[in-house]
């Protein structure tokens, strides 16, 4: 019995001594951070990086509470959150580690190929209700959104709908997989998903943010040179006081090798 106790204490001591950094936050950034952490730990034996999800809001709350070293988010830190950190007498630093693009998807059987920002806003605020109003067939539009708590929901609202609210009673689904499934079997559906999730069962639209002068397709090339307009940065936030602790890892993520991982996961590198 005693032996067991000693061994557990010893193990606990070892894990505490190792320079462990914790990353917490957005589920969008989660797969990327995991891959980065694996590669980083392979190169730097003895360093430990622990990655957990939970959502952007959860990550920043943990940073404020001091239970994580880095908060990974798919949105910019909110004014009120920055305020809370300042109230504790600390300052926060922001690093953009990559970009994610949102593709607007419709059913493969729908003849529409392109939409403007204004048309998208009209559709998701409930003002445009039929595909014939935007040049398509006489078919009811069925917009699908993500759940209200997701970072994707907020991002689309800010970037495309200029902070206007979705119409009340919009259908929403709990996961990206469910959205793609539903769009692929619903003729009038329209929805948005992260570009890494695109596949052949749905059609991605070209989008215009300049009143229809030019439409841009969400191809790899167009997102890489940031021509495609619905694009969002992915962030790491950390406190200046813990800079020395997290610096090595963040430098690795921003290095050539780290940015290559960003691309393999399906996001867009910063360079």
């Amino acid at each position, binding site marked *: 019995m005693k032996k067991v106790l000693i061994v557990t204490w010893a193990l606990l001591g070892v894990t505490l001594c190792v320079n462990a950094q914790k990353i917490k936050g957005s589920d969008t950034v989660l797969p990327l951070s995991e891959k980065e952490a694996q590669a980083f730990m392979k190169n730097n034996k003895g360093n430990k990086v622990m990655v957990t999800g939970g959502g952007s809001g959860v990550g920043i709350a943990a940073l404020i509470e001091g239970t994580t070293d880095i908060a990974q988010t798919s949105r910019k830190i909110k004014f009120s959150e920055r305020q809370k950190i300042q109230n504790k007498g600390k300052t926060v630093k922001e690093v953009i580690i990559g970009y994610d693009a949102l593709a607007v998807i419709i059913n493969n059987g729908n003849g529409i190929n392109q939409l403007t920002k204004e048309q998208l806003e009209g559709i998701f605020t409930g003002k445009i209700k039929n595909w014939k109003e935007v040049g398509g067939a006489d078919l009811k539009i069925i917009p699908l959104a993500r759940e209200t708590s997701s970072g994707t929901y907020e991002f689309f609202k800010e970037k495309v709908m200029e902070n206007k609210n979705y119409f*009340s009673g919009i259908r929403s689904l709990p996961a990206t997989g469910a959205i793609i499934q539903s769009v692929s079997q619903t003729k009038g559906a329209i929805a948005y998903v992260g570009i890494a999730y695109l596949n052949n069962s749905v059609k991605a639209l070209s989008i215009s943010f300049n009143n229809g002068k030019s439409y841009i397709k969400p191809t790899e090339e167009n997102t890489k040179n940031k021509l495609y307009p619905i694009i969002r940065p992915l962030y790491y936030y950390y406190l200046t006081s813990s800079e020395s602790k997290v610096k090595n890892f963040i430098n690795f993520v921003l290095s050539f090798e780290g940015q290559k991982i960003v691309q393999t996961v399906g996001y867009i590198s910063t360079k």
Partner: protein
Amino acid sequence: MIKNKTFKSIIEKLIEKVFSISGLLTSILIVFICYFLFKEGIGFFKNSTIENGYGLYVNSKNKNLNLSSQDLKQIFDGNISNWKELNGINKSIEIIRIDDVFSIYSEEEIGENYENLSSKTSELIANKEGSIGFFPIEYEPKGSRVTKLPTNHLKLSDFLRGKEWLPTATPAPLFGVLPLIYGTLLVSFLAILIAVPLGLGVAIYLSELASASQRKIMKPIIELLAGIPSVVYGFFGLVVLSPFVQKIFNLPIGETALTGSLILAIMALPTIISVAEDAMRNTPRSMREASLALGATHWQTIYKVIIPYSKSGIITAIVLGMGRAIGETMAVLMVTGNAAIIPHSIFDSVRTIPATIAAELGEAPSGEAHYQALFLLGCVLFTITMIISIVSELISKKSYKKY
């Protein structure tokens, strides 16, 4: 020998004590959970109608304003563009958010620690007669040319009678629970309507008509259905059932209340079948034989003797099935489309209370209005279930009296 006996009685006493303590603990736990649920839920009414820590400010020339949450939503969505429509001055509405202040003024003007932010917000509101500002209270605009709009507490009547559920709308979230209640009731009752005849049919077959070997195979298979995780049912519903419903009824979308009830009916079946079947098989042999001896056919015995005798068991089966249908979360979340609208037909998409709680509780900031609203939804669900079980208790008591 005597020693052995006292030892035994001590053990028996001990076991008795353990049982009564565990009974006590369970009741305390239930009371504690109810207390927690209602405490968090009632906290909702202490919140003000606009987001915590923020205030709404207009120019002092703009008088006679009495804005409801609904008006605010219309303003910030750009559906109302002139103050005249709301009894205000004849000026077009200009919305200023705190982020806009940062794009109007440079960082130096605002100051590193936002020292001048308050004076900048004052300046903006004072200079523009048609402006409405949505700022944190710490940086509220001051001076004689700025009016702060009064805020109210959230009200029970708005909660129960509201028809819009938009919990993340800024500046004034809308917590109207009516569409969610209708959605939950529609899906659950429809599910029970489908599941009860089917379940009772199978129960009668199993207890009266099936041979022993058939029963031996069927019963474990049906009980196995209860062990499948609900998210699997949900995905089955999304991939198989919803395209099926869409095709059969020629609907624009397959995620409807009907799809949800079909899935719930399938999920409630094992409970209904096994409880009802047990009740029917408990009919005393003497009663069956008496009925047959009087010349009744097998079928007459079933519906004149066995079903009336096992009525209370059948009602229990229905109530248990209903409990499963009303409280079910994941499967419904996947297949009903989750649109917070008051349904007009069974082919509309609906949002149920459990699905709303499951989808939103994870990221609602703890302690704020949205979080507490979800607990209040839990209280509503609790009340609905309680009413149903009380009513069913009364019904089964009545039917007992007859015998």
